[in-house]
């Protein structure tokens, strides 16, 4: 009992520096942890990617709930805005409708003609494309990436490499898949590489994102005949994306660099459709396990291709 106060004093004399030391040690450990995670992410370690999407999976219901009122407000704001130019909008739609009816007739005629030619030539039918639609619930990309999170994942049948489209055209590709979420790498992202074709001239190129709003047409032939205003659609090369989906129009040609303005309306990206498209390989590929790995392999190949 007599030792009580003395022991207490000794403990506090020891405890204070010990606590400070432990704090410092914990801080250093956290710094090392962060650096290790950064390095592991750089090394493309699968575990990091899996952990990352698992974390997003876990918090997605909360963000999903949070995003609904915001979506409702921005929808209302859009509606109020569109109320003001209802008259002009109506006139524009009438004009568009007239033009579209003409196109519809033409499309019907061409469809029949096409079907007849296909029968004559015994063309192998295109693989069927199925659709999964998801709501965009997060778009936190930050300054280095251009991505979206959609509330459709593996349990809905999504796998890596699916094309992500809206009614305007292609917006990106599924890059990571969780149980109920998937991450879409937008066509404007630094790592996005989409095989495309210039509609009129049938020139092939790779649409390479560089984080700017207008991606670049890379690997375009030297004497390619392109001009601003040309439509750019997916070529379907590589068998990952379905061919013929609209991507954008050539916006500018400056010092041999052609930039494409995507058709996508980034302001109203509320729902995104993911296309399940599987092209049967012409030659059986060795060591091919499943579709998901095929998708990621194609993306990695694209990633490698851009390095000189």
């Amino acid at each position, binding site marked *: 009992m007599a030792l009580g106060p003395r022991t207490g004093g000794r403990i506090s004399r020891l405890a204070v520096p010990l606590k400070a030391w432990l*704090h410092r040690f914990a801080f250093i450990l956290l710094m090392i942890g*962060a650096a290790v995670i950064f390095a592991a992410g750089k090394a493309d370690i699968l575990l990091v990617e899996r952990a990352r999407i698992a*974390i997003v999976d876990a918090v997605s219901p909360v963000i999903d709930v949070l995003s609904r009122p915001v979506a409702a407000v921005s929808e209302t704001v859009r509606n109020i805005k569109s109320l003001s130019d209802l008259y002009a909008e109506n006139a524009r739609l009438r004009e568009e409708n007239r033009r579209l009816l003409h196109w519809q007739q033409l499309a019907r005629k061409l469809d029949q003609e096409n079907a007849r030619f296909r029968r004559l030539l015994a063309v192998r039918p295109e693989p069927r494309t199925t659709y999964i639609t998801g709501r965009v619930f997060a778009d*936190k990309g930050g300054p280095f990436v251009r*991505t979206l*999170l959609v509330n459709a994942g593996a349990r809905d049948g999504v796998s890596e490499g699916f094309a992500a489209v809206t009614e305007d055209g292609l917006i990106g590709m599924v890059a990571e898949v969780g149980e109920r979420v998937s991450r879409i790498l937008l066509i404007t992202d630094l790592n996005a590489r989409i095989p495309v074709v210039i509609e009129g001239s049938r020139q092939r190129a790779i649409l390479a994102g560089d984080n700017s709003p207008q991606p670049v047409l890379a690997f375009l032939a030297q004497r390619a005949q392109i001009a601003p205003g040309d439509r750019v659609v997916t070529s379907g090369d590589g068998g990952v994306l379905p061919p013929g989906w609209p991507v954008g129009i050539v916006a500018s040609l400056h010092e041999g660099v052609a930039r494409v303005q995507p058709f996508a309306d980034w302001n109203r990206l*509320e729902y995104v459709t993911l296309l399940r498209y599987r092209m049967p390989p012409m030659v059986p590929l060795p060591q091919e396990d499943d579709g998901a790995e095929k998708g990621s392999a194609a993306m990695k190949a694209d990633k490698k291709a851009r390095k000189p």
Partner: protein
Amino acid sequence: MVQSRKYHPRRALVSLLGLAAVLLGAVPLGIEGFAPVAPDWLLMIVFYWSIYRPELLPAPVIFLLALLSDAIGGGPPGMSAILLLLVRLACLSQRRAFVGKSLLVTWFGFAAVALGVAVFSWPLASVYYETLIDPHALLVRAALTVVLFPLLAWPMVALQSWIGVDVAVET
């Protein structure tokens, strides 16, 4: 007489504020081009509490919030954690310069920190992606973060006084 600190549930509010900032920051606003330059709310929170009450936002909490933020954003994993822990370290060493001064002084300090984070994250991201990242979005984001800092700082001042000082209880 040994004194121990009674844990007050209000103390957890700061960590919850950080969590709310990370989750709400991910919500799409439907404004074209906003996501890349969206202000870094978590940086504001880490800066403020590391200066005024570092014990309310401990380093492990900052680490976890930063990892969550990186996971949702899809950028280089662990990068926010490195940056925000460095911000905490810098704030802890310089807090004497800010405590007791006006919020304007803190704002200037924050501007320096936000610029530092932007400048330091550029080489990190460039190494990660093996290309020279366009620093434009990074700088716009830093500027937006600095401009909007008072918007969050004032409520945080109120929160800090509401949480109050620790209650010491005799045992």
